[in-house]
């Protein structure tokens, strides 16, 4: 049972894309985004921008699973948060360099993805969402009780360290460009996955799973693979976030975090390439402005959810994609 996301955005058949797999339009947009990313810290607060970048990667990872795999996970905070904890622990207690800490976090998310994914793909649709949510809650309780996570306090004052033991990441400005490189690399990797033969099979499964099975595809393997990949990228985002804020806390593993990434993807446009980036930017900016308003953030987010589901299911990029009649 697949989500009927964005069949409109897939109007252009695969053959129209360049032989190298990336259309000129997409390449131009990626280039523009990169330029924007390079000049942005000269105008805006780098920590805010790094938050946007981390969530953009998180949302893209989530969209890989929902928009292209057709699987709605309601527990992606588990991978984001677990990676955040492991990276923070590795950097602070084990004294690993930042790149190794991030790798450790991502590895933890991949392992968690294999464990939860292999169980969750046994159910479809709504059950899949509930199973992933329940397992994420289990990770939350584990994080609350485990000795190394610091309970309610989380892991604080995580050292950013020196990249490869050389480059000091303490200044926000330096760290920003590392985070930009990680996010951009991650998103390009996801883009490559989507447009690979593997990605095409995923789309086939999303559109009609029984048919994909009858064509001889072992759909469960594909679903597990995309689940694990998505968990891994979510972990990469979470681990990076731990270094940016020098903090891993229960917020990262809470179910509200899982809801937020769903919202970012929904607002931006499920199943689009650039939607999650736009959605993450919108939601993080909104949270930034509403930060002093307390519970209003929840109310506004809930309202956006309701409006998006009722009236705006294509998302921002989905609508633009319809206007320009090109998949974005």
């Amino acid at each position, binding site marked *: *049972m697949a989500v009927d996301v964005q069949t409109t955005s897939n109007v252009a058949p695969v053959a129209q894309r360049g032989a190298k797999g990336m259309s000129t339009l997409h390449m131009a947009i990626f280039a523009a985004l990169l330029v924007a990313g390079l000049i942005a810290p000269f105008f805006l607060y780098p920590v805010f921008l790094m938050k946007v970048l981390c969530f953009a990667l998180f949302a893209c990872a989530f969209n890989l699973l929902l928009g292209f795999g057709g699987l709605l996970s309601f527990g992606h905070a588990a991978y984001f948060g677990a990676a955040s904890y492991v990276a923070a622990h590795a950097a602070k207690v084990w004294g690993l360099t930042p790149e190794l800490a991030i790798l450790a976090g991502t590895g933890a998310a991949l392992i968690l993805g294999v464990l939860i994914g292999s169980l969750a793909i046994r159910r479809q649709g*709504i059950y899949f969402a509930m*199973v992933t949510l*329940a397992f994420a*809650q*289990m990770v939350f*309780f584990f994080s609350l009780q485990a000795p190394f996570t610091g309970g309610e306090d989380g892991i604080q004052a995580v050292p950013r360290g020196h990249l490869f033991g050389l480059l000091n990441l303490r200044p926000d400005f330096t760290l920003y460009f590392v985070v930009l490189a990680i996010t951009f690399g991650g998103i390009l990797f996801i883009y490559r996955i989507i447009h690979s033969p593997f990605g095409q099979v995923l789309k086939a499964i999303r559109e009609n799973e029984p048919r994909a099975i009858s064509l001889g595809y072992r759909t469960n393997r594909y679903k597990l693979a995309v689940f694990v990949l998505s968990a891994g990228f979510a972990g990469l985002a979470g681990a990076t976030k731990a270094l940016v804020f020098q903090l891993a806390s229960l917020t990262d593993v809470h179910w509200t975090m899982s809801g937020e990434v769903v919202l970012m993807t929904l607002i931006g446009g499920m199943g689009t390439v650039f939607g999650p980036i736009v959605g993450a930017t919108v939601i993080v900016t909104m949270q930034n402005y509403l930060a002093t308003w307390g519970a209003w*953030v929840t109310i506004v987010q*809930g309202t956006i*959810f309701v409006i998006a589901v009722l009236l705006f299911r294509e998302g921002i990029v989905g609508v633009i994609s319809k206007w320009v009649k090109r998949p974005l």
Partner: protein
Amino acid sequence: MFELLGITPQALFGQLLLGLINGSFYAMLSLGLAIIFGLLNIINFTHGAQYMLGAFVTWALLHYFGLSYWWALPLAPLIVGASGIVIEKLFISRLYHLDHLYGLLLTFGLALIIQGVLRNNFGISGLPYSIPPQLSGGQNLGFMFLPNYRAWIILVSVIVCFGTWFVIEKTRLGAYLRAATENPTLTGAFGLNVPLMITLTYGFGVALAALAGVLAAPIYSLNPNMGAELIIVVFAVVVIGGMGSILGAIVTGFGLGLVEGLTRVFYPEGSAVVIFVIMAIVLLIKPAGLFGRTA
């Protein structure tokens, strides 16, 4: 025998009782979810918020109108159920032609709004609500002390659950409902008003959640987040039981409450996650759920 395990019978039966009470809530909530899912094909993520609303309306009736617990017992489910009917008419009914996952997302958004509004108005510290005087005190059963109110929760829950089961499985109204669940188009062709049945079913499921909220008000901390954590556990209960059968939802609910209570005696650290572990095992052995029908 108990001494051998280092556990007093008081502790064991005390935890089993607590487990049974948790089970009562699991059963009522998963029953509501199952009924709503059966006819509407959506997972009502607002269920936890509606349970919380039931408790808050109970509090508000006393605080603003001086209406006691006994008034709240019928009134709160009616009020919250009516609000559920409005929600179904205004929002959910627009999504039936879409993938079921949109219903999940919509009700998730509604739950966020309800929780946010109440958190704005009441904070998260929790409101006081005392046990009605007629049900305070308790019985000494010899091997344990049984507080009257706890016995009352179990009694009400069992009556409501099996009452619902009886109505759905044994009466004419229930037969219409089962027909509409099985094949809504055909049922409509026989002249039954299926959209009305859908609306009322949603209202009833929501009212069940609110009734659980009324029962919870005097014993659990009354705060806007009380439903959010609970509903995730109930989702796991629903996955374990499978939503195919009404009786299955009830039995699974009570059973898992007991298992949770037992875990609290023998391995307290695991009590928060035991239901999720059972869910993992059930997914491995019988993916469709204990009472589920494989599609």
